[in-house]
Every structure is written in C-alpha cells, then in structure tokens.
C-alpha cells in the first residue's frame, strides 16, 4: 500500500470550511468553557522566574475570580527547572503539570542528555512530558532514529503522559506531517502536538486537521485513541472555537474533553474570559478587567 498522502488544496479548503460554522448563544458559552478547560497554560521563556511561575499557576487554578463557573485549565506547561515549584503550587487543584523536555525547542543534544532532561522533569513531579522529535533525522530520512528516540523517551516517562511535538513548521509538507504523526503514534505517543511555539508557522487549522485525520485512521484501524494538541498561534476565542468545530466534526464526541484535546497557548485564556464576560453581562469587558499572569 502506498504511503498515505495529503492533497494540499483540498485539505486547506476543508479546514477553511469549519470556519463557516456559526457558534452562538449556549453553544458558544459551552464551547468557551470547554476551551478554557483544555488549555495548557504555558510559559516557556528564557526570562521565566519563580514569580512568573507563581502567577501562571494561580491563573491556571483560578482563571477568573469573578467568573467562578470557569473551571481550572488542564495544565500548566513550564521548563523542567520549574516543575517542582509548579507541582507544589497547583497542589490538588486538578491542574496537571506538563514540562517540555528533550532539549526543547531544538532537541539538538544527544539522546542521553534528552533522557536525563525527561527523568529530571518526571522526578520533579511532571504529569506530562512534551518532547520534540529529531527533525534533522526525520528530514534526512532516518525515520528509525526518530522512532527509537521517541520510544526511549516514552520509557523514561514512566507513568507520565507523553506528548510528541512534531514541529510542523519545520516539516513543511502535509505528507511529512502525516508520516511524522504515524511514526510518533507507533512509537508510543499519548498525544501528538503541532509545534513548540518557537517556529513560525506554529499550529494552523490544516496542519491540525491532517493530524486529527491521522489519529482517526489509527483509531479506525486499532480502536486506540490518541490525543491532539495544537500549540502556538491560537490566541483568540474565535480561533479556538473553530478548532473545536473541526475536532467535533472529525473525531466526534469522545475527543471533546481535556483528556484528549489540549490547546497549547498563553494569551488564549484571557480572550476566552473576555468573551465569557460579554456573554454574562452583555457588554464587552476591557482588557484590564482580566488579569495578566
């Protein structure tokens, strides 16, 4: 059987068609609440500090004190050195601690160093590990190297969930995205994730659709569910609702939970909160009405 391929024009048209769905009133409210519950609230900067991580974790646990019905987000996502602090801060709120590891974002170190990075994060209390694949090996055709690395990281994760970042912006073609998704799934990924957020383009709707369709193929063939995380570039509630429409109409009801779908984002949460304020009060809130983290 030939490799699965993707028609660029058609997949982009299909992805655009989800944007024509009209999401209003109750379905908008429900969608926004779902989006906020699916967010991996993220800070991944060289300037991250304990104070920044505290602010992030507080926001994750209680997104908006004036909107008590908004539940905590799915997870906070930080560098390994901040995992133990984040673990302590989120405590038993239900918010997971995710950590990027494997020399994020480039992954340009040897496997042992990557594994040490992963073990350190897991030992410090990470529930989830976001690894990057070896794009250099992938693009030079060494698929086995990529697969072996993912398997080794999966072993190092122990009980932690593994999200595999493909960095689709560097893979460039949709055919590559399919191949990398299949490889990650076959090598033990619990989730597949588009991007680090450090490369442009990050998540796009067509790339996410291609990955969702790969997850669908795997499910139809094996019955096994794999999670999906678009990350980077999704900053408005409207965009996020379009992603949810795409998810609902591609994979159906079972995936519409934080267990199987996440948004990797930093500024999305506040736009969702602004929209929820408007639905509650009928008026647009000002940017200063929601807190920065």
């Amino acid at each position, binding site marked *: 059987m030939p490799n699965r391929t*993707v028609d660029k*024009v058609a*997949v982009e048209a299909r992805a655009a068609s989800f944007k024509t769905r009209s999401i209003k009133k109750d379905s908008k409210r429900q969608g926004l609440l779902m989006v906020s519950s699916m967010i991996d609230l993220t800070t991944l900067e060289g300037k991250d500090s304990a104070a920044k991580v505290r602010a992030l974790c507080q926001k994750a646990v209680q997104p908006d004190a004036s909107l008590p019905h908004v539940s905590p987000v799915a997870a906070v996502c930080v560098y390994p050195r901040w995992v133990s602090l984040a673990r302590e801060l989120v405590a038993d709120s239900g918010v997971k601690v995710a950590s990027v590891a494997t020399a994020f974002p480039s992954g340009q170190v040897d496997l042992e160093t990557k594994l040490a990075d992963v073990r350190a994060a897991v030992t410090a209390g990470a529930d989830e590990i976001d690894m990057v694949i070896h794009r250099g090996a992938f693009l030079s055709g060494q698929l086995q190297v990529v697969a072996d690395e993912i398997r080794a990281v999966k072993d190092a994760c122990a009980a932690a969930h593994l999200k595999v970042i493909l960095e689709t912006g560097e893979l460039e073609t949709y055919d590559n995205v399919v191949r990398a998704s299949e490889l990650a799934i076959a090598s033990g990924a619990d989730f597949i994730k588009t991007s680090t957020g450090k490369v442009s383009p990050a998540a796009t709707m067509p790339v996410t659709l291609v990955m969702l369709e790969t997850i669908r193929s795997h499910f*139809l063939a094996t019955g096994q569910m794999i999670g999906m995380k678009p990350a980077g570039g999704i900053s408005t509630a409207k965009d996020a609702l379009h992603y949810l429409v795409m998810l609902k109409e591609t994979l*159906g*009801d079972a995936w519409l939970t934080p267990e199987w779908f996440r948004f990797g984002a930093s500024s999305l949460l506040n736009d969702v909160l602004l929209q929820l304020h408007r639905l509650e009060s009928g008026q647009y809130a000002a940017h200063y009405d929601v807190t920065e983290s």
Partner: protein
Amino acid sequence: MSPSPKTASKPELDFGNAWEYAAAPEGTKVSIEPKYGLFVNGEFCAPRSKRYMDSINPATEEVLSKVAIANQADVDKAVAAAKAAFPKWKRLKPSERAKYLFRIARRIQERARELAVLETLDGGKPIKESRDVDIPEAAKHFFYHAGWADKLDYVFPGRKGTPIGVCAQIIPWNFPLLMAAWKIAPALACGNTVVLKPAETTSLTALRLAEIFQEVGLPPGVVNIVTGAGNTGAALAAHKDVKKLAFTGSTGVGKELARNLAGSGKRLTLELGGKSPNIIFEDASIDQAVDGVVQGIYFNQGHVCCAGSRLFVQEGVMDEVLARLKVRIESLRVGDPLDKNTDLGAINSIGQLATIKRYIEAGNSEGAQMFQSAAKLPKHGYWCKPTWFTDVQPSHTIAREEIFGPVLSVMSFRTPEEALMRANNTPYGLAAGVWTDKGSKIFEIASRLKAGVVWCNSYNRFDAASPFGGFKQSGFGREGGRQGLLSYLELKS
C-alpha cells in the same frame, strides 16, 4: 482506552450531541408578494390566462406566494416584446450593453443576502450554499460576460459574430437564479433578447432578478420572464419567432424538445442529465478524496446534473474509503435550510422526493446494500437522509439512471483500464472526477474519460470562464467561457 485491533466489532466514532450547535437561523427578512405576474416588456403584468400556481417552501410545505401560469397568449406577448426590443438592443454600442451587465452584477451583489434567503425559502437548499455559491456565482456570470460584450470581434479570430435574435431559455429548479444568470448573461452580451421560463417550483428569484432589470434601467423587452409549467415551456419553444432555444433539464424533456424543433431552423443547446463517475485510486489522498466525494454527491441534496453519483473505488482501499465515507456522512447536518450550520436542506418538491424514494426502493429490491445517516429529519417538509449503497452492480438501476437526489452508488474496480471502462459505460457524459496523487495517471485517465468536465482531485468546482456541457445524452453546446458565446452568435467568415 486500550488497543483492541482484534476485536470483532469495528471501532466507531460517535457524532452525538456532546456539544450541540445552537440554532443559527439567517435573520434577513425578505418580503414576498402574495401574488406574482409575468415580466413582459419591462413591466410586471397579470397573465392573460388569469391562472396562478402555488409556490411552496419545501422545508415547511407552506405556500410562499402564487405565481402566474403563462398560456399561449402570454407567451406570444412576451416573444413579441423580445422581438420588438431586438433591433435596438442589437445595434446598441457593445460597451453600453456591457454597462447594463455590470450594473446587474453589482445589483445582485448588493441584494445578495435577500436573494440567498429567497432562494433557500423557495427551493430548500441550505443558506450556506445559496449564500456562498448560487448568488456569488450568478453575479460572477454577469461580470464575466460584461467583459466580453465589447470584445466579441476577438472571440473567434477572423470571423465576425452577430446576434441570433430572440432566445428562449428554459431553466431547472436546482440552481434557479444561477441558471438564469448562466442563460441570460451570454445572450445579452452577444446582443440577443430573451424570454426566460423558470422552473415551476422555483420562480421567485428569477422574478427578483426582473426587479433588478427594472432598477438598472434595462430597456423594456430585452429580457422577459414567463412563469409556468411544461405547457408554458412547450409553447415558448415552439414559437415561430424564437430563433434559438437553450434548455437545461432532464434528458427526457430534452429529447422531446429536440424532436419538436427538428426542421424548424431554430438553434438548440441542451444541458441534460448525468450519472457522473468519481474514481478513487489506491494512491489517492484518501481523506480528501472522501471529502470530495461527499461534496460531489450531497451538495445541493444531490440535485446537481453533474453530481458524482457513481463512486468507483480501487479494491485495495475499499474498506478504508467506506469507513471514512461513513464517518464523513454522519457529520453532515440535515435540517432547516435557513440555519447557517445546515449541510443538507430539503428536497425541492414532493414529486422529486417520490422519485428519489422509488430509486432507493429499487436499490434495495435489486440487492444493493443501503446505508443512511442517523440524521433526524424535521416533521414537516420534504426530506431525504444522505444515502449510500454498497454492493452495487453495474447493471443495477441505481448505477444506470439519474436519481437527482442524495444517493450514492459505490462500486469497485481493480485496474485503471477497468475503471475507465466502467466509468464510460453510461449513456451520459457530463462530468467525472479522478482522485490520485500521481500526476501521470491524472493526465491519462482524464484524457480518456468521455465527459464534458473532468475534475482532478476536486469536484463541483465552477467558473464562469470554464465551458460546461456534456457528451452523449448529457446534451450538446457549452455554457461559460469563450465556447459558451458560440451558442449565442452567428459567425460570418
């Protein structure tokens, strides 16, 4: 959830209501007169027949309005008006004719929302389609032909084109305004005058178009619109002063018209039925191919002459295609055509619904395996669930005859030669689709398919610049593009 590759039951996705879309009805209000007369010589007038027919909203079965039924006397009056307007319209400076067409196009754009809602109310198609396809495409046809009006000397180099005279145009109910545009725009651009007969179930947008003709000051008589049923159309086609007939509709009626017109000296173009094949090779991009197939057969409830109603799948990917087809069809939303999230609207008329049901019954009784989506249908109105048949044999009725509804017949093939042989084994030849990621295969297959339009890795894409028309019993003549102008010009060398 643990992997369970060996379990007997296939894994299924659940397209339920974990997150239901709230109703999102298009809010634009459209005024509809209780009664519409005929549009003759630039004015609306009561029919000499004094008879009217109900125009029904197929989604609710409510009467929207009453529309005049033109008799012989009404047709005579309309043709006389067109004949009287012809000499002056023909002599009008071509760039002036172009201005009228531009104005019509602009006015369609300005009144787009109103026209879209009216089209959906009258015909049952989803507002998403009337808003995003029918109305914008109608405007495009007027824009496109406005561009040609003053360049006709360059269309067929070395030959001079002159108008034919009064053109009778009879259009179907599946794309009412768009078909009116396909017919009227090239006729006017070439300097002809027109008597148009809309389909009996869908006259309202054509009558709105008549209002637009008034608004832009189109000279009286250049376009006349006579509403009615088959008798009106027959009277129009037979009229001695009609120089050309353009008909879009069923192959049965097309043949009858051709017989009646034989020897009359009238020019004739026919755009008739189809039973178009979609061919998925095993090296296709399967998910996109399935999207295209769904678009090819369920667009406009399958009321499309070029609908991809026969699906041929290479045996090696049959299971994969069928699994995805089911998933994709289950995600289609059927219901209120005015809801912006509706994918499939109402069947156009109770008569067409009966025809579709008869074919579904034939599929079942002849031994094909039927599947239908789990969509819930509204209580009132005319509805048909998205339907597909597997185990269809080439000799089954549903593999041979045009159903003109949301019914897909799935068949298999083993080799490219077999695919071609089966795809071409039909009395029709309107359109075809080829799905493969391999370029060389596309060129070979496309060149050997006997169809007027071949889409490669896409389906149901239209453009005013691209000629549309059929082979074999799908008709003759082309609409759109340079070739479409040929139907409305006499050429001199």
